[in-house]
């Protein structure tokens, strides 16, 4: 599903590589935590998968895409097969919950009748039935993140990338969000989550890839965040 082969990334503005000789393979349906301190290369890792950046060296494969070498005009296809969730939710404040979710389908040209059908379904999946007409500002942080997850998942992507999705949430709400991500993972969707949250990583006991200074420090099949961090 995801394969990085000896990937290095050096930004023009920096002398130290953001990623150095990273090789990671993630299978379909896996749930993987990507951990490490700030500046360890987690964000660069995710950006490479989305072709927001191209690697300085090495190859990146996502699904059937040779991400680093594909033509620009095919990038939208790649991104349609990846759902994204962020710490800051990134909802459109002037649109309702349902409109926010529908937006993701509208802009890729899905027909209206499809949108009418799938938006309520996905809102129910994330536990927001009955809040379709609310504005984002009327929702709690946890609810807003559910909207963001609904938007990321509504097009049934092959994988979900989550960049610190619980970073702005209290522990209980975070736990709810993790349950939701697990549920999405059980539908066969690969989930890759970058996080700082020790307790979540420790309690879930999933695969952990730890980055430090752009290198893979460890890759444990059923890992914990680690001691002393």
């Amino acid at each position, binding site marked *: 599903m995801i394969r990085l082969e000896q990937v290095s990334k050096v930004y023009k503005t920096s002398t130290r590589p953001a990623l150095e000789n990273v090789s990671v393979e993630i299978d379909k349906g896996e749930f993987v935590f990507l951990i490490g301190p700030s500046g360890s290369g987690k964000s660069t890792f995710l950006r490479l998968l989305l072709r927001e950046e191209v690697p300085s060296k090495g190859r990146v494969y996502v699904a059937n895409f040779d991400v680093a070498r594909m033509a620009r005009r095919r990038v939208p296809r790649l*991104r349609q*097969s990846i759902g*994204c969730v962020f710490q800051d939710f990134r909802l*459109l404040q002037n649109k309702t919950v349902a409109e926010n979710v529908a*937006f993701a389908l509208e*802009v*890729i*040209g899905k027909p209206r009748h499809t949108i009418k059908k799938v938006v309520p379904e996905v809102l129910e999946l994330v536990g927001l039935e009955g809040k379709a007409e609310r504005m984002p500002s009327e929702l709690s942080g946890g609810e807003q993140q559910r909207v963001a997850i609904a938007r990321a998942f509504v097009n049934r992507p092959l994988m979900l990338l989550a960049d610190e999705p619980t970073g702005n949430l209290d522990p209980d709400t975070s736990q709810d969000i993790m349950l939701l991500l697990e549920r999405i993972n059980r539908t066969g969707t690969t989930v890759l989550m970058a996080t700082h949250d020790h307790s979540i990583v420790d309690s879930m006991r999933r695969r952990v890839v730890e980055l430090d200074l752009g290198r893979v420090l460890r890759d444990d099949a059923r890992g914990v965040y680690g001691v002393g961090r």
Partner: protein
Amino acid sequence: MRASFVFSEVLTGLRRNITMTIAMIITTAISLFLLGGGLLIVRMIDNTQELYQDKVEVSVYLTNDVSATDKTCTADPCKGLRSALESDPAVDAVQFENREQAFERFKRIFEAQPELVKLARPEALPASFRVKLKDPDRPEVITQAYSGRAGIDTIADQNEFLERFFSALNGVRTGVFFVAGIMAIAALLLISNTVQLSAFTRKTEVGIMRLVGATRWYTQLPFLLEAVVTGLVGAIVAIGLLVVGKMAFADDVLRDPIEAGVVSSIGASDIAFVTPILMLIAIVISAITGYVTLRLYVRT
């Protein structure tokens, strides 16, 4: 492509930057109005030239001496000149006008000013040949061949007057085009600025669109259309201004020369002629400006 989605995005964008939108429309309109005015002047020059095309004559004025003695052009040098002109391959037709006939025509032309007519004497007017040319654009053929011949005083060529008249009009046209060009630069910069502003205010939206895999058309078309729509509205305003300008100004100021057949009037058909040109220019320029701005300033 969902047209309704793109369309609603365009409207939202235009409303959000309403002051910029208005500024953009005004500058575009003024620039296109001036351009359209220039085009109308060009049309007028063309039409007027056509108006004169079959009227242009060369007048060959005879000396005082000949004018006084030879009323029927039956003696030399008048007779010889006539047959020479008539057999000239450049000449279409020759008409002799003696002193009395010239005086009659003078009276007719200045009917409205009887005091002028009263002052005039037939003796002051020379007899002449009014020569119609096969090629009205080349009167110098006659001027060169006949100047200085016995019996000829001067040769007057109406083209000289017309050329001065047209060069004045051409000057006005060039000036108008120049100002239109400067305004167009202002309009261009405003369009570019508005597209940037619009893209900036919708950064989150565009970011999400890119992330969920919207194609470039979906992310950029709203901005492009925004520019094109304002350009088109500007063109429509400009055409409105031209119609108003024609009715309130041109028709009024130029009424006398138009009625006298001196200049051609600007008709509805002339405005209909420039309308699609202005529209097309507005669309093409705003689309190109929008596209270039997006390529230069907005990440895709």
